[in-house]
Every structure is written in C-alpha cells, then in structure tokens.
C-alpha cells in the first residue's frame, strides 16, 4: 500500500517538476535552434533542424568567464560566512544591547535596489582602487547575501540549546572558543544553506558585475553573455547555450548539496 502510494506521489512529483522546468526546457530548445528558425510560427517543440553553433561558440569563448564566475562565487561564500556567522552568533546567543535594532537595520538593508547600491559603490571602489577587480566584485556580491545570512544564522543558532553553551563556559571556554568549536559545527546546515544562497546569488548577479567590473580583465559569465548581445545583433542560440552550460555545474552542486539544505528559520530541534 505504501509502495503504491509512493509511486503515485513520485509520478505527481515528476509531472510538477516537468511543468516547473518547462521554460528551462524551452531555453535548451532555443540553444539548438538555427538563426533562421528563431521566430518560426508555430514554434517547433523540438529543434529538428538543430545546430551546434551556439555551443561551439560557448566552448570556444566562454570558459574563462565560467572560471571567473566560479572564483567569484566561492569568494563570495567565504566572505559572507566570515561576516554573517559571527554576527548571527552574537545576535542569537550573546544578546547585545541594540541587537534588535541591528536586526531591523539588516532587514531594511535588503530593501535598497541593486542599481542604487552599484552606483554608490562606484565612487567608493574608485577611491579604494578596487574597481574592475575580482575582490571588489566579491565584496559587492556579498552585500546581496550578508543580511540574509545573518538572519539565517541568528535563527538557526538561536535553536542551539543554551545548556551546551553553559557547559562550555563551565569548562572555561570564552565566546570565541565556544563559537568556533561548538556553535559552528552544530550549525552545519545553516552554513550550507547560506553558502548555497550566497553562491547562487553571486552566480546570477549582473548589475554589480556590469557597473563595477565592466572594464576588468576577468569578468563573470553574466557579462560574458553580453558578448552575444551586440549593438544591433543578438545571437540567441549562443546566449541560451551559455546559460545552459553555466547552469550545469551549479545544478549538479544543488542536487549534491540538497541533503544539507535546511533553511530552518525558527528555533527548533537541531537535528543532526
């Protein structure tokens, strides 16, 4: 009985996923379509007269951009964790005065549209000399993830039982030691979740890349796509092919990491 119910659910799940991913399928479809067939009506569901020229272009030209995106993504993850984890720990466990106000400000910080941030950063970056550099872009991309990260860590670490903390204190551990040796390992799920969000957000960021790294030597994939968006001419099969190629490694990452992804936002049992 359970087995049959499970199969029905799996089928329903597959159908739902197929509906959700239909636009992604369409993207793959376009990536194989010839230039002349782009606006054919009715549109072919399957690229019968397909072409690989989009993919050839991508493999020839886009790999450096993908590499740069990867470096930026990892850098953003590290930097975000570095800033958000301690802050979350403090807000959750150390009860600083004015902590509530800080949480509120972090919430507010996410309300500022990206373009405003980017324009504001331009002047700062120019004077700091980090315009058109990778560290600068990593810094900028982290602003997308840090407030959310603090929120996530605060909620998660709030769920760690205080007895564990007090036991550590009894043994003579200070705040930092408690944080590094006890709280962080217990927050593994939160670390993975925040890392995932930070990576994804930095991977698909365009506005910061364009404003702050437009002239840089190494640029992320979102700028790489613009190679195919010329002044008057756009190569859509190459654009979609780039997106497909860019999505494959991150999709794999997602499937592998999903076991740990648990965005528990309330204090609940910390299941290990």
């Amino acid at each position, binding site marked *: 009985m359970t087995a049959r119910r499970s199969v029905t659910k799996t089928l329903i799940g597959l159908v739902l996923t197929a509906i959700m991913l239909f636009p992604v399928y369409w993207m793959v479809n376009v990536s194989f379509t010839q230039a002349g067939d782009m606006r054919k009506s*009715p549109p072919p569901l399957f690229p019968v007269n397909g072409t690989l020229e989009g993919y050839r272009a991508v493999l020839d030209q886009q790999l450096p951009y993908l590499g740069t995106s990867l470096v930026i993504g990892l850098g953003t993850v590290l930097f975000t964790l570095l*800033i958000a984890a301690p802050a979350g720990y403090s807000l959750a466990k150390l*009860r600083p005065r004015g902590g509530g106000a800080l949480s509120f400000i972090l919430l507010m910080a996410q309300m500022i549209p990206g373009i405003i941030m980017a324009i504001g950063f331009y002047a700062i970056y120019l004077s700091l000399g980090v315009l058109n550099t990778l560290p600068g872009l990593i810094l900028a991309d982290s602003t997308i993830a840090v407030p959310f990260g*603090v929120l996530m860590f605060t909620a998660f670490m709030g769920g760690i039982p205080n007895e564990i903390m007090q036991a550590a204190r009894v043994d003579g551990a200070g705040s930092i030691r408690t944080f590094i040796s006890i709280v962080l390992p217990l927050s593994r799920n939160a670390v993975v979740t925040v890392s995932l969000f930070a990576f994804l957000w930095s991977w698909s960021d365009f506005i910061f890349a364009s404003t702050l790294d437009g002239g840089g030597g190494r640029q992320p994939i979102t700028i790489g796509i613009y190679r195919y968006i010329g002044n008057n001419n756009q190569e859509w099969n190459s*654009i979609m092919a780039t997106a497909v190629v860019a999505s494959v490694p991150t999709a794999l990452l997602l499937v592998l990491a999903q076991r740990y992804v648990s965005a528990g936002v309330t204090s609940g049992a910390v299941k290990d």
Partner: protein
Amino acid sequence: MSQTQADPLAVPHQGDEGTDPGVLTRGERRRLTGRRRSGQWAAWGFLVPVTLYLVAFYAYPLYRNVDLSARNYTVRSFVQGGAEFIGLDNYQTVIHDPTFAKALSNTILFTGVSLIFQFTIGLALAVFFYQNFRLSATLRALFLVPWLLPLIVSASTWSWMLNSDSGVVNAGLRVIGVDPVNWLTSPHWALASVIIANIWIGIPFNLVVLYGGLQAISTDIYEAASLDGASAWQKFRWITFPLLRPVSAITVLLGLVYTLKVFDIIWIMTKGGPGDSSTTFATWSYRKSFGSLLPQFGPGASISNLLILMALVCGLVYVRYQGKQQNS
C-alpha cells in the same frame, strides 16, 4: 547547573537575574554587572564587521540616493557637481506625474499577487515534498534550477514563450481552440504576464525556506495527532500551519522586500509597457534614470526612495506583528 551565588565563575544566562539579587554582596553585584558589560563587549566584538559593513556598503549608497533626489541634477551638474538643493520638489513632481497612480497600483498588484501565489505554491510544494517519496529529494533540488539562470536568460525565455505570434504558449492555445492572447503587447495582459514570470522565479526561494520550517516541526506532534485520528487536512490546518507562522511571516516579508525591488524581469519582458500598463515603481525609477537618452536622476532617485519607504513600512508592520507574537 551552577548557581550564581555558589560559583562566581559561572556566567549566568544573560538577562536572567539569577535567583535572589537581594542576597548578592556588593562585590558580587559589581562582578555581575562587570560580567554583563564584558558580555556586551564580546557580543559587539562579533558584530563589528557587520556594522562597519553596513555603514560602508548600505548607508553610503542610500545617502547618495537621497542626495540625488533632493537636488536638481541635470546631466551637467551630475558630472561637474554643484547641483542646487531643491528639497522635496522632485518628490512633488513624481507624485503629480500622470504615471504615478498607475505605477503605484501596478506595484501593489504585482507584489501582492506574486506573493500570494509564490507563497501558496511554495507551501503546497514544500508539504508535498515533505512526504519523502522516492526521488523527492532530487526533484526538490531540481525545483531550484530556475534560480541558477541569469535573469536576462529567464526573462528572455519567458518573452519567447509568450510572444504573440511565435510563442509556444499561443501555439498551445491555438491547438486547443482558444484565441491567442497578446501576452506582452496588450495593456490588459502585460501585467499578468510579468506576474506569472515573477511567480515562477520566486517559487524556489519559498520552497526552500518553508521546507526548512517544516523540518523544524517535531514529528512527535504529528504522531500524537495521528493517534487521535486526525486527517491529513486537519493535521495541516491545526498543526503545520500555526506552527509555521513565524517562518511564513519572515518568508512573506523577505518575499515582499525582494519582489518590490524586481525590475529586470519586467524591463526585459515588456519594458514597463505598452504605455504604462506594466510599469511599477522599480521600472519607472529605472526608466527615468537610465531608460532614455537623457537621464533624469533626480526623479528616478525619488521614485526609488519612495519604494524603499514602502518596504520600510511593511518592515515595521512585521516587527509589530512579531512583537505581538512574542508577547502572546
């Protein structure tokens, strides 16, 4: 557990006064306050990076934006400096602009409808995937794929699918005998089209966060309910939903904040058109500042400040709601 009086080295849980403050000696009281103060130092020590980060990277751009909105910036004064201060004049211009009413109503509609559907669908999917059937974990991960795509690609894909003449959606409608709809070019449908695309993009976030919330609910409660003979719907209505309330609140708030900012999707799909039919504050602000050959930074900045104000109000409502929840 050590008592404050018995073991002066044990730091009592912050905020709780221990057992009997009146019994503390002056020395112990001084040590207690000292410990609390040292606790504050440690706490703020961990917060220093994030605070500096906030000031440098959020406060400064915000200040520049307010400055942009409060001065009369022409292209010349933007480049050379020396724009005169005009106070709230830009805001006045914006509010009296004929587009204001439509942009406001579109923003509210866009955000409201998107949120309702994103949340409901996200919740339904989270509950569905929580049942741990075969492949549920993989499928759940696959649901996050829309998130990986750069917005220009997702938005363009939706534009292609919704094209009046060569789009697959209209082709499908023709097959089942329904008249094709001008999704992106009709003033009646443009807003609906961008809302649909936005819902699609927002489902993964809701799914992940709500699923996490579901995981935090102890299964014991469900077992107890099963023993009492509760049906699946009853379990959801009386256990899951109430217990999810804090998570739901934060999901809705974050969703609201993110959706208010959305502009790429609308800009790429319809440019806010035709006319103003899919213009929201975010796209209007962008159009003023960057959408024509002659940038109007002042009005553009004012519109985005109004947007931030709207988000702020919602944030305050949330805080009051949270306060009430904690007191109840």
